[in-house]
């Protein structure tokens, strides 16, 4: 087993270092928390886009669904932290099952259109059932319960530092899980489907089953992210389930780079930071986001992570060249 396929070494270590450093480097812990939450959503999107080749505009449904469901069971049924998060995972999975099983009946542009249509529908459902969702105003006073394990309160999660620590642990567990998924027989089959669906089917895979499971895994992680976001804000806005949310998640995934899970962390970091810094200076900052997206697609096809790795490789080969020439000189 090498560091490329080992789920605990290689980029998992880099992710761990970044998670630990982020609250110290970034302007605020809350911002760091927000980055990790969106990194979860981008990572889940990456499983579909990067590894399976499915461009899904349905991610906002799972995100919003996770946020609403966790908030509702906490508000109305006094669910604790862990059980509310489990609900959001289940709801995310169930929504992804519905959207996925219907959308993957078509491929290419029709598949994309179907996910888009589902998102529009979900938005208007959330808007219409305002008794449950708060409609335009969103769901207010979403609690952030204490973290209880086996009846013992580990932390009340009231401070932003403690909530960051909790989200960081969740992120790390999901990251390792996603690495396992990618390097499983299932994950390698997903890549095969992305590369050549026709051939995948010819060698014996019922590709739709694989796509559907990919959807369900992606949906459950996105649902979890939505719930954590509601707990962070103490609020579940309607915008969670908006098409714009799906777009943002996709943009983070693409800007970060789809060839690696670490790209999703970079992408989420870049967009959340940009938004935070620029929106205070210039209300039209989304325009810059557009420019950034165009630049990445045109000049950095591997995304930020692709850029980082190629820079790294260049540095290494430069160094090697220098060493070689210097040994030649010393000869």
């Amino acid at each position, binding site marked *: 087993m090498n560091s490329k396929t080992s789920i605990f070494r290689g980029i998992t270590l880099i992710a761990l270092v970044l998670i630990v450093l982020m609250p110290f480097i970034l302007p605020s812990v809350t911002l760091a928390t927000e980055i990790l939450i969106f990194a979860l959503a981008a990572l889940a999107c990456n499983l579909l886009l990067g590894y399976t080749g499915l461009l899904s505009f349905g991610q906002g449904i799972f995100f919003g669904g996770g946020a609403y469901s966790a908030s509702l069971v906490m508000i109305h049924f006094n669910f604790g932290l862990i059980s509310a998060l489990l609900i959001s995972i289940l709801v995310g999975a169930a929504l992804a099952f519905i959207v996925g099983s219907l959308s993957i009946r078509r491929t290419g542009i029709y598949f994309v259109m179907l996910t888009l249509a589902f998102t529009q529908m979900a938005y208007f459902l959330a808007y219409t059932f305002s008794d449950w969702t708060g409609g335009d105003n969103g769901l207010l006073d979403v609690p952030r319960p204490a973290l209880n394990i086996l009846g013992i309160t580990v932390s009340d999660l009231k401070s932003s530092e403690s909530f960051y620590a909790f989200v960081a642990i969740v992120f790390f567990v999901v990251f390792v899980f996603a690495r396992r998924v990618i390097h499983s027989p*299932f994950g390698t089959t997903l890549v095969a489907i992305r590369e050549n669906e026709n051939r995948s089917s010819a060698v014996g895979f019922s590709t739709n089953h694989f796509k559907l499971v990919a959807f369900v895994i992606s949906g459950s992680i996105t649902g979890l992210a939505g719930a954590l976001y509601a707990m962070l804000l103490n609020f579940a806005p309607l915008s969670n389930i908006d098409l714009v949310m799906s777009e943002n998640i996709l943009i983070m995934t693409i800007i970060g780079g789809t060839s690696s899970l670490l790209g999703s962390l970079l992408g989420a970091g870049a967009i959340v930071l940009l938004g935070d810094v620029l929106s205070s200076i210039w209300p039209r900052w989304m325009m810059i986001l557009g420019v950034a997206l165009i630049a990445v697609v045109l000049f950095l096809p591997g995304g930020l992570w692709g850029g980082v790795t190629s820079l790294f490789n260049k540095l290494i080969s430069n160094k090697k060249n220098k060493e070689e020439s210097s040994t030649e000189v010393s000869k």
Partner: protein
Amino acid sequence: MSEYLLETSGLGLDYGAFSAVGEVNLKIQKGTIHTVIGPNGAGKTSLFHCLTGERKPSRGKIHFNNENITYLGAHKRVSKGMARSFQVTSLFQELSVLENLRIAAQGRDGLKSLKFWVSENKNHHNLEKAHEVLNKIQLNDVSDRLAGELSHGQQRVLEVGMALCGSPALLLLDEPTSGMGVDDIPIMTGLISELGKEHTVMLIEHNMRLVMSISDRITVMHQGNILVEGSPDEIKGDEMVKKAYLGESGHE
């Protein structure tokens, strides 16, 4: 038990009003290399699509191992013991040669490959199969290269290798030499006759020298139907076959 591994009865395929395959009764005996030839547009590939499950036949039946598989999906035929290559090379271009073969071998596991919680390294049997096929098709030297970087001839060989990974009882090959240079064709000829020792092979092929040298039985198709069927020697001397080819290309 019938001695035929594959049997079609009245098999046909229409594209709209046009009938690409009329009514074909094809019988492929176990352990043979059975080649289907015919001028361009004769309906060979269309027939092939029906056999692999890529297209639903418009009429007729397909029996494989005495089981009716007429409407079975393409991926399910693999577990029944069929595997195919493509006329237009269809590989996982961005993956290594070895990974191409390993995934093709993994295809035999079908839905068992949905296990997302175990490491791929646990599936030794697929990697072993991939190495076994790699030896057979003699691409060991390029096993780490991306499939898309191989020469055309090597890609054609890999194309056949991927079908082999399914450990099929029946190997369906659609023009394995298509686009291959003259120098590479003997390699493919050797490979197919080698495979013929262990598998039943249904071959579609244009290259006459190859066809005549390795086929046990030849079916000639013309305008969607079977014109004649026989041993290579019988086909060589057949006047109708000559006419069909002459009608198409003028010389030959």
